[in-house]
């Protein structure tokens, strides 16, 4: 089992956190999110992203507005809601704690 496979569940679990991070930095539409993730270990496809976006919107973490685009039909631009911002802060803190633990555990 490769490391890549081994960490699949962890990457999957972190995806929501990363999407929140990307949306927090900028008002983006789905293709921007995919592009931001594509160069990383978290490269994702539409098939995964769209249901995830719909879920976090339903959870009240993000919202979208329709905006005209120069080419093609209007697009949904996502941005964080106050609740999403709070969740992002919470998750970031928790992640910092976990990664601190991973780093420090077993060291002398």
């Amino acid at each position, binding site marked *: 089992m490769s490391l*890549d496979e081994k960490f699949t569940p962890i*990457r999957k679990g972190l995806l929501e956190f990363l999407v929140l991070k990307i949306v927090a930095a900028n008002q983006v539409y789905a293709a921007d999110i995919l592009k931001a993730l594509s160069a990383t270990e978290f490269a994702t496809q539409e*098939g*995964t992203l769209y*249901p995830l976006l719909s879920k976090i919107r339903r959870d009240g973490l993000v919202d979208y507005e329709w905006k005209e685009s120069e080419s093609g039909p209007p697009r949904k631009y996502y941005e964080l809601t106050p609740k999403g911002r709070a969740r992002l802060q919470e998750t970031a803190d928790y992640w910092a704690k976990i990664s601190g633990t991973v780093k420090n555990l077993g060291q002398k």
Partner: protein
Amino acid sequence: MNKVITLNLNGNAYQLEESGYEALRGYLETASRRLEGNPDQAEIMADIEQAIADKFRARLGPHKTVIVSREVAEVIGEMGPVEDAKPGSNDTATSASASTPPHGGATPVGSTSPVSPRRLFKIRDGAMLAGVCNGLAVYTHLDVTVIRVLFAVLTVFTYGSGGLLYLLLAILLPTADTPAERDAAFGGPSTAQEFIRRAKAGYYEGLKSFHDSESRREWKRKFRRDMRDWRQEFRREMASHAAQSGVAGHGYWWAWPHPGAGLWPALLLLSLTKAIITFAWILATLSLLATGAVFGLALPAGMPLWLGLIVLFVAYRFIIWPVRAARHVCRLHSGYGVHGFTGFADSFVWLGVLILLVWTADRYVPGAHNALQQVPPALHQALDSLRTWWAKR
């Protein structure tokens, strides 16, 4: 040379090679099924269709108007399997998603899942009344609008027995509430594809047997001869029946099945024949309008569409004429009022034949299925052009 299919993706028309179309359809059906029960299902599907449309558009140019099958496979590969992000749906089968996208030749997801036959259910999501049409639409893979229009037309033309059928179905059909029932209603995606594959194999096999033009002509001749003989025999039979029952003809309409009313089976048969011919004509017209060909047979070169429609209509009138005449004779001698029991019973015959025909055509004639699927966009287009015309005045 490959057949090209036009499809509507979230409001945009694209032309795809046939095998690519099947692959895409499989992908979308699987996606829709995986999102079953998700309150945002329709919205996510629209997003996904839009994303596919964007990817198609990026592959088209002024000199390239058709998406080839290889490109469809590429796009499906890029999209990746659709998986629901519902809380608690952490099944391992979908866990590979966060890994890097696969490159090239992706196959539609779920094409290997076990075959499960679809069942007819009522489906309440998005239903207008009880969800009967919705269930039928899912069962037949047709747009629900087509089914609804069919039901409405049926009710008008059949003395209301279409409405009666709806009521019956509404009472008899179970509602698909649980996920398992929904799965049964929608069936495995493999079922649909397997069906299409098999139907096509049969269709082409049939066409192949007509390759020899001499035998084809012979077959046609024989068919026409048989039809003529059959019609003559039928008329003779009718005449004798009419003569017999002329005596006992003045019964009451509820006397059916009165043994003296020997015309009843004949009337039934005639109604059946008339209904079959009429619906064959309607299907042929629809098919001509939607695909420019009658059940896959293209019009002769240089023949405009309107002329084709007229020829179809004339042929229909010609074929139906003896049947109509016989029915008329039959009714005159039967003593049943045209607006009495026969009219109502007739409508049931029509109903049965319509359902059987549409079902058969949908299942076994790939062209007819596509034609039926083209009806809603065609209706929308017609409405739009009508509206612009009205606005101009």
